[in-house]
């Protein structure tokens, strides 16, 4: 049994020369039934997220919530200050003079929405990420330069060291590496 050996590795990684080869290989890997796979590229590759079965991100919804919170906060602050906490009667004009509250409400909407977007992205991506096993592969430092990597993680139910290595070899990568955990 290769069971024990499996757990010692984070996964297996294949290196490719071009993004097209990587997309092709990822598609084959996904079709072969692997689900815990990830691809690493020096720039965003358009088709890749679909190919590895990445679902629609929930980020837009987080940003919408942020925008609504910012809007409420912005308007609420001005309403509270002008109509409740510090009412000033200026020639009998309405205390809740909402048209003049719009610019600040707008700015607050944008500000909180943008923070939601950035912090949401950080949280979902698990950044900051002090350690990640993929960096144990010496050649992986080229992933930010011009090489393309595909990693099948050992947590995948279909993962089997010898079989998966064989499978990756069949995709004709430049090389296949073990990824230490």
């Amino acid at each position: 049994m290769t069971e024990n050996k499996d757990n010692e590795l984070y996964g297996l990684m294949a290196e490719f020369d071009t993004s097209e080869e990587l997309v092709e290989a990822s598609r084959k890997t996904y079709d072969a039934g692997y689900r815990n796979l990830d691809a690493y590229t020096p720039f965003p590759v358009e088709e890749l997220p679909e190919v590895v079965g990445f679902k629609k991100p929930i980020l837009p919804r987080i940003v919408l919530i942020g925008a609504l919170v910012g809007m409420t906060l912005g308007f609420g602050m001005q309403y509270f200050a002008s109509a409740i906490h510090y009412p000033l009667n200026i020639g009998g004009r309405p205390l809740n003079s909402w048209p003049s509250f719009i610019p600040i409400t707008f700015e607050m909407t944008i500000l909180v929405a943008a923070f939601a977007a950035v912090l949401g992205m950080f949280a979902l991506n698990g950044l900051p990420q002090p350690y990640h096993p993929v960096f144990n592969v010496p050649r992986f430092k080229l992933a930010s330069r011009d090489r393309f990597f595909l990693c099948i993680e050992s947590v995948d139910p279909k993962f089997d060291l010898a079989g998966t290595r064989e499978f990756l070899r069949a995709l004709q990568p430049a090389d296949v590496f073990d990824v230490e955990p």
Partner: protein
Amino acid sequence: MSMRYSILRKPIIEGDKSLGQITDDVARTLETGPTRLWWFAFMISFSVLVVGIAAVSYQIKVGIGTWGLNKTVGWAFDITNFVFWVGIGHAGTLISAILFLFRQRWRTSINRSAEAMTVFAVICAGIFPLIHMGRPWLFFWIAPYPNFRGPLWVNFRSPLLWDFFAISTYFTISLVFWYIGLIPDLATLRDRAKSKIKKAVYRITSFGWNGSVRTWHRYETVYILLAALATPLVLSVHSIVSMDFATSVIPGWHTTIFPPYFVAGAIFSGFAMVLTLMIIARKVLNYQEYITLDHIEKMCKVILTTGGIVGLAYATEMFMAWYSVNEYERFAFINRALGPFAWAYWTMVSCNVIIPQLLWIKKLRRSIVVVFLMSIVINIGMWFERFVIIVTSIHRDFLPSSWALYKPTLIEIATLLGSFGLFFTAFLLFARFIPFIAIGEVKGVLSYGRRKNHKPATIQNSEQELEAVEI
């Protein structure tokens, strides 16, 4: 689409670069020591900055009585500089957000540096209202927070407060947007770094970025979202700046066209500044293949368009003054064109409306020298536009007995110069320590205008055959 057609567009990046070459080209500037030219430029900028710091310290110590203001002209040099610098910033956001939403992929070579320009320009802008407060150490009074001064709140109905919110939001978002774009490039630098300290610094600043497809996908989503948020934001910022004037009852300020007029002017001047910086940088840093003549030409077209809007706004103002049959309004504009500050008005018209028309000629749009001179002319013109709007509108108000003239003092001029010193010092440091070109983004557009799965040998032949044809 381009896959099926055999005729390809011209590549955005010249020189048929490979992915690795792009990394090398951009990182090389950071890894080699500063050139003599850089030191020379830095010394000058820094000296000017020191002069500015001295001037600002002096006016904070003595008070803003050191300025040439009087009872009639209460806003002049200082607010002119503020509006000028905020305007400069707008081009950066336009390039990073609006052109991104319009899928103008050529923006990738210039967006990093244009965004840096935005951040520095907004810093320069922020300094002026801060000094203008008179007691800058109490600046935090403008923020709404629970305090023991009453229950006392800031005046939420005042455009000056809107301005505070607009500028601070704009600065924050520009900075965040810029940094988000920087993370993958910092990861690239981390993977290249040889020294331990450098590696540690890049490791921390890149947050452990590993370029996984999920990370990239969320990153792209956040980039689109930020662009979509920054687009209305940038339009709102200069609109709100214009409301500082437009919501008053001063003839010459009280105009409904101010918001779009100011936004167009901001983009106009901002692109001029981008051109000034890029033309120098592409030469000094040797980025001619990334920031190509095509880039410069495209920016010239933006300048031509926004310059047209600015020209139209000048004409509309004049027309409305006449059409309103309001004697004060009419006087304000006659005084603007023929009064004691007529020289400033005509400088503005020549620099912003007349001279830029030369850019209709393609040959001049593609001439580095012409475009460089033009960008400086436009910057001067746009500075004068703000000066004209502010000073000529108030120096002769409703009562002739209170009419006055305005002359800046040396302190004010030194402060303006100092802001340029700060801007260029910051920009030079940026060019030295941060990737000047967005490496990851440029790699993304590399296949633009190339055959899929091309081999470098064949592309050259096909390029020559097809060069003349564009879809």
